[in-house]
């Protein structure tokens, strides 16, 4: 059988976001892959530089639909570091609590997506039903299901009452039971093990060389976790294990994520138990003094890095985001090669990609002339008018 090139995406049932894989197949085997990003580029970094710090929180929170709290906390931490703000303890604990709830929500979502990619819709329905419980808690304490909007400079916007904490504890107990069941399912169900084992192998050396982050790296035996290595928020006051696994395949990544769910439950219990009393925020001036800061945050998908440079005005001079997917995307391309087409969706899903976080402007080179061309908005509009005119469609 000859080689055929098939396009997966930008619109394809396996992908939840627009991106394009050009897969070269030999029979069912993938012999080459080419990724094309840029369908969802929003220019958030530039937009941040043109808005005030207060407006930026709202913008940064919308970088990702799932780890919205991760991005906003990461950004706010950088700004607070430049402004030298002492954040109240209670606010830090609330941030940690929301961050861990977000991790649970994200990992349960991932479990469902992964199950769907291998055609196991029952697990998908089950885990998404349980995810609703976490979303309910988040809606209860922040007012929103995904973009919580709980962070602000110098603390958080909403306090949590005792009754709400009790409610969280109750839900966490229930979720822990459910998660134990999922652990049992993934460890025992044969068709899951068959589909996930020895797929998308990534050795420890490769994971380090290609700079993998988050659960992908931890599943290859790389013991990294920003929460422990460079503690932020309240993570230096709680005890937790960093889950690693030596399977180094998609199955290992599944086990790591489910293991992290269990750790998150324990962190939430400790946070609620030790939550100090006191104010929830301090006032931060509108203008941030000159300086620069780099902030790291362990988002559910891996390490998130934000860099902020300020020039003394109320707008940042430069904002740079590196979402975890950007670090993992090279690894993913490496992992896909030489596997079956049937394995492609699950290998892509196994890094828990968030392409809208990652999207960058890309230049596409013409293969023959080795040149590329940049169009601004005006010339793009003119181009499209000409395109339609040539085909006899009137404006």
């Amino acid at each position, binding site marked *: 059988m000859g080689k055929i090139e098939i396009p997966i995406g930008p619109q394809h*049932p396996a992908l939840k976001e627009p991106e394009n894989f050009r897969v070269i197949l030999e029979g069912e085997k993938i012999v080459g892959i080419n990724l094309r990003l840029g369908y969802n580029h929003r220019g958030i970094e530039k937009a941040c530089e043109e808005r005030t710090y207060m407006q930026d929180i709202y913008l940064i929170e919308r970088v990702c639909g799932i780890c919205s709290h991760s991005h906003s906390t990461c950004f706010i931490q950088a700004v607070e570091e430049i402004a030298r703000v002492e954040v109240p303890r209670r606010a830090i604990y609330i941030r940690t609590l929301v961050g861990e709830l977000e991790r649970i929500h994200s990992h349960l979502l991932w479990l469902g997506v992964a199950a769907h990619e291998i055609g196991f*819709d029952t697990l998908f*329905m089950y885990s998404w039903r349980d995810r609703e419980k976490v979303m309910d808690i988040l809606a209860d304490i922040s007012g929103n299901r995904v973009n919580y909007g709980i962070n602000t400079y110098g603390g958080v916007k909403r306090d949590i009452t005792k009754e709400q904490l009790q409610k969280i504890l109750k839900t966490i107990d229930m979720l822990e039971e459910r998660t134990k069941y999922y652990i049992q399912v993934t460890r025992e169900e044969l*068709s899951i093990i068959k*589909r996930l084992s020895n797929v998308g192998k990534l050795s420890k050396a490769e994971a380090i060389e290609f700079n993998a982050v988050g659960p992908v790296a931890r599943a290859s035996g790389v013991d990294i976790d920003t929460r422990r290595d460079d503690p932020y928020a309240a993570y230096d006051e709680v005890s937790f294990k960093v889950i690693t696994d030596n399977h180094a395949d998609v199955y290992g990544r599944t086990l790591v994520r489910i293991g992290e769910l269990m750790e998150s439950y324990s962190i939430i219990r400790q946070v609620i138990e030790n939550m100090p009393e006191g104010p929830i925020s301090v006032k931060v001036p509108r203008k941030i003094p000159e300086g620069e800061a780099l902030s790291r945050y362990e988002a559910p998908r891996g390490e998130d890095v934000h860099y902020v440079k300020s020039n003394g005005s109320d707008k940042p001079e430069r904002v740079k985001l590196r979402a975890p997917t950007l670090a993992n995307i090279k690894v993913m391309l490496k992992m896909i090669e030489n596997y079956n087409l*049937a394995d*492609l969706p699950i290998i892509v899903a196994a890094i828990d990609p968030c392409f809208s976080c990652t999207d960058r402007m890309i230049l596409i080179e013409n293969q023959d002339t080795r040149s590329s061309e940049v169009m601004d908005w005006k010339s793009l509009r003119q181009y499209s008018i000409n395109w339609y005119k040539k085909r006899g469609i009137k404006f």
Partner: protein
Amino acid sequence: MMSIVYILIFPGLLFLSIAGLFIEYVDRKIYARLQNRVGPPWFQPFADFIKLLSKENIIPGTEEKVMFRILPSFALAATVTSFLYIPIWGTNALFSFHGDIIVILYLLTIPTITFFLAGYSSHSLFPLIGSSRILTQYFAYEIPLFLAILSAALLADTWTINEMTAFYTQHTWYWLFNIIGFGVSIIALLGKLEKVPFDIPEAETEIVAGSFTEYSGRLLAMFRLSIDIEVVVCSALLAAVFLPFGMNLNPALVFLLFIIKVLFIVAILSLVRALMARLRIDQMVNFCWKYVAPLSFLQLIINIILQGVVI
């Protein structure tokens, strides 16, 4: 005149269409309840069917437009025809001749072949991959299915499904000998009907809708209907061959019993569908040749010995 009624109304096209859509509802409802969902209302498959009929019929720019158009009718005709030879209200089917069980089995492979050709004549990448998967899968499940069903016929020493049912009705407990064959054919049926864990040819997260990717409107509705009817016919065949008890009662009772048997088989299929993940094509072929095919050979050997010893 009567033949036209048989073919078009009962137990032909009309009855089968309604039964097929109803069975689709049962399958979807069971599947949904197992997944903790509410599931569709009873008229959902009918509504889907009518909606598809009213949709635009898009035919891709292929050289095989005629093939593309007539394939759904072929699939539908083959499944409906095969049902006429299956006994549903007694030991006698409507039409019968010597060797009809082989004809039924071959008529039931025609839909699979039309699915393959449908993908092939779409001239698009995803259908092409889907149809190559259909053929690969076909060679994995078809032989165990044939062997399992034919070894039951071997025990009855006949190639006519009527005589077979009569034989098993006479010897009430003999169907227990075929229990391995029943399991084998349930597994093969999952492959034939392209259900999880063998829904590889239409794995939506990999190749969109397999060979039906380019189909829409009326033609897709026809294909969907023929798949639904295929479920009924295959379950009916399995019920007639492997669960042949109570066939000498009052015809109305037998018919009721037949519906219960079909529902039972459909429930098994939905249960398996809810419990497993989709396998890869190489794993599926491996599984079928390593475990399912040897089991069907075992059934064949058991029946040959039994036929020599007992009867």
